[in-house]
């Protein structure tokens, strides 16, 4: 008899708890989008290997924290897979927001080759917070490859 009562009590208390859950904000729907943001932390690294594995590319932003809706520049370091600087690359750049279907409000470009495997990218501007993909198409030594960086701007 007591055991039965205990079961009833557990059921009732559980029901109470479930009624509270939404109020506590425990349950929340995840936003749906056509293209999902990459979940892995490594996807947001500032150093990425190009699609075919030809180049290892590192970016640094000036200012260091990539700003929202502000014109700024990046420096790009391009190396071969074994770490040799790539000094004569032809590079084009473009950025998109996959969840919104639009690109950057500017047309950035490489304006300076420092000659040691680093390049200045001017005209970078990300119009809003959120997930951005920045793509560099790199042509050097008879090879063409592309590299994509993911950014979470806030």
């Amino acid at each position, binding site marked *: *008899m007591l055991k039965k*009562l205990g079961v*009833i*009590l557990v059921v*009732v*208390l559980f*029901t*109470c708890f479930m*009624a*509270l*859950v*939404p*109020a506590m904000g425990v349950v929340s729907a995840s936003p749906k989008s056509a293209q999902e943001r990459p979940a892995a932390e490594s996807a947001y690294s500032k150093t990425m290997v190009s699609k075919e594995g030809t180049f290892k590319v590192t970016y640094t932003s000036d200012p260091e924290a990539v700003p*929202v*809706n502000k*014109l700024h520049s990046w420096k790009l370091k391009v190396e071969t897979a074994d770490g040799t600087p790539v000094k004569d690359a032809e590079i084009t750049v473009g950025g998109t927001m996959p969840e*919104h*279907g*639009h*690109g*950057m*409000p*500017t*047309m*950035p*470009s490489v304006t300076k080759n420092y000659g040691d495997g680093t390049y200045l990218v*001017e*005209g970078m*501007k990300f*119009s*809003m*917070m959120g997930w951005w993909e920045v793509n560099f198409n790199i042509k050097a030594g008879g090879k063409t490859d592309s590299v994509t960086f993911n950014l979470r701007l*806030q």
Partner: protein
Amino acid sequence: MPRFTLLTVAFMFFMITGMGGVSMAGDKDPQQIHQWSEEDKKVIRSLSLSSLPPLPPDPSNAYADNPKAIELGKKLFFDKRFSANGKVSCATCHIPEYSFTDRLALARGMGTNTRRTMPLIGAAYQSWFFWDGRKDSLWSQAIGPIESPPEHGVTRSYCAHLIIDKYKSEYTEIFGSLPKVTHKSCPPKASPGTGNAVALRLWKAMKPGDRDAVNRVYANIGKAIAAYVRRIVPSPAPFDMYVEAVLRNDQAAADRAMGPDAVEGLRLFIGKAKCTNCHMGPLFTDSGFHNIGIDYNEDKGRAEGIDKVLSDEFNCLGKYSDAKPEQCGELRFIDSDKSKYTGSFKTPTLRKVADRPPYMNAGQFKTLEEVLFFYRKSSSKEAEHQNLTDEELLKIEAFLKTLSGPLSFP
């Protein structure tokens, strides 16, 4: 009996906690209404005037912060002599008492224009000017309407003579000597910028040195006006006081600053309605161009502004600009893909928006309610608001009304 007691207690517990849960999830508990997550606090702080940086420098205008230029600019702004009928000044459309706009759907100077007067609030923080961004500095923007036939309807040559006749000492004190031109060497009707064939013929007949000298005076008129206009900035509104109260956890001050509907509207504005995608920062604009699906009546907006700003002799890279080329980033890296911008117009500031109807690039809507209901109806990819209820739209409207504070200007 013990069984009855246990069940009763359990039932009462359920009723109390269960009901509590419902009320917390449904109607807002007065204690809860000003609760914001740390993430949300960051966003509302970014919209507050406390996040507005000091006036940004304008490298293309060496006189932007010159006190004498501000003074002269103010006089020029209100001077009706700079118009063909002597009745139009900048202030004809940019009326200070009306937040520097004019209550009209389409601006009216010498004639009626095809677009609405833009607000000047916080203009110094913008990268592009006019609805289509055909200008890239405030000084270059300021001289645009002077030669436009339906606006001031005069010429740059006429303006140069007016400065020589009426503002000689003030001008020379700031900008140095005035050109020695006469009505013969520089006919007051001469201009390359009015679209008038006679004006263009007269302009072409002038000596290159005189044309350059007149252009210089004309640019300086713009630089003085810009020195004044760039100081038209918003002062704290109820929304800004609300953010401050929330950040210091002052419930009473938060209550005083914004009513519950407006607070809910703010929550929608930064959340479900995603208004901050474009209306971001303390001036509530991204300074960008968007097609929101409005009927733009053949006006292609930004798609036509791109070539105009690139070919403008008064742009940042032109000879009348004081900037070094590397300081003209926005122009150098302009997105010149016109196909993306048909029917796109600049995101205007929302500061004081409730005080200055009508709305949109051609005054298509008389009230904020009309604007918000239009946004829900729009099928534009840049304005996805179809999921908002009537009640939610009205709450956003209540929030927008909290963005009206006083303006500060010289």
